[in-house]
């Protein structure tokens, strides 16, 4: 066993269609609790009450993008230690390095298979839990 199972995911995506299908996939297939938000501001409204275990953030959003949203959320006690996964269509070598420096666990590249998404997130989560166990965390 690698540790506690993942339950609560705070998901920020500005596109309503994608947010709906991804939320549906994570809830129906992954059995996760998902708080879907359309913006950084909406996420800030929900984060304390929801107390997420994982942050799932679209990178390219208007006004406040994914990396900036992560920085803002990390200032809240309820999300300061929650690991994050970014979703983006564009990943270049420099981007990955920048994201890793921000403590992002992994990046899911669009387009992704919505049916396979819960399994993909579960795998990333289990890898994260193993790394915590290995480091005695």
């Amino acid at each position, binding site marked *: 066993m690698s540790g506690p199972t993942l339950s609560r995911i705070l998901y920020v995506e500005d596109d309503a*269609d994608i947010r709906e299908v991804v939320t549906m996939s994570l809830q*129906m*297939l992954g059995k996760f609790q998902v708080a879907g938000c359309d913006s950084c501001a909406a996420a800030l409204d929900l984060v304390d009450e929801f107390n997420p275990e994982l942050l799932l953030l679209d990178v390219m959003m*208007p006004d406040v993008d994914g990396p900036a949203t992560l920085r803002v959320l990390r200032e809240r006690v309820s999300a300061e230690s929650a690991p994050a996964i970014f979703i983006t269509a564009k990943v270049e070598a420099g981007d990955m390095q920048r994201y890793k420096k921000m403590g992002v666990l992994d990046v899911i590249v669009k*387009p992704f298979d919505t*049916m396979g998404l819960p399994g993909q997130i579960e795998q990333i989560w289990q890898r994260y839990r193993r790394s915590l166990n290995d480091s005695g965390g």
Partner: protein
Amino acid sequence: MTAADEEFARESARMSAAFVAQLPRQVQALSDDLVAWLSLPREAALLERLSHKVHQLKGAGSTFGCSGISDSARVLEQRLATLRSDATGGSASAMDEVEAAMEALRGEANRIYGESAQRGHRGTQT
């Protein structure tokens, strides 16, 4: 396939159909935004908003299995990025390329919508 898989597949198909049904309207709205920007080419915010909407359409297209829409939106997004990086507001040829990419996107949207409507029509025939 589990019951949850089947339910998800059904809901997903419903959402894809809804996405296709509004595609021509969505592309027309993008086209209107482009016309609005062409009349006010110094309004960088208009171009930025349009670029973001095209980016969203690219993502939604691939999520809902419309790779042709995603590909056409990607081309338009690239052409708009060229315009955005051009401090002079874009050369005539760059504008032409944007308009051509918008037409290609419109053509793809109409094609997918037409195919879907035909399938729906056939599905209702007894």
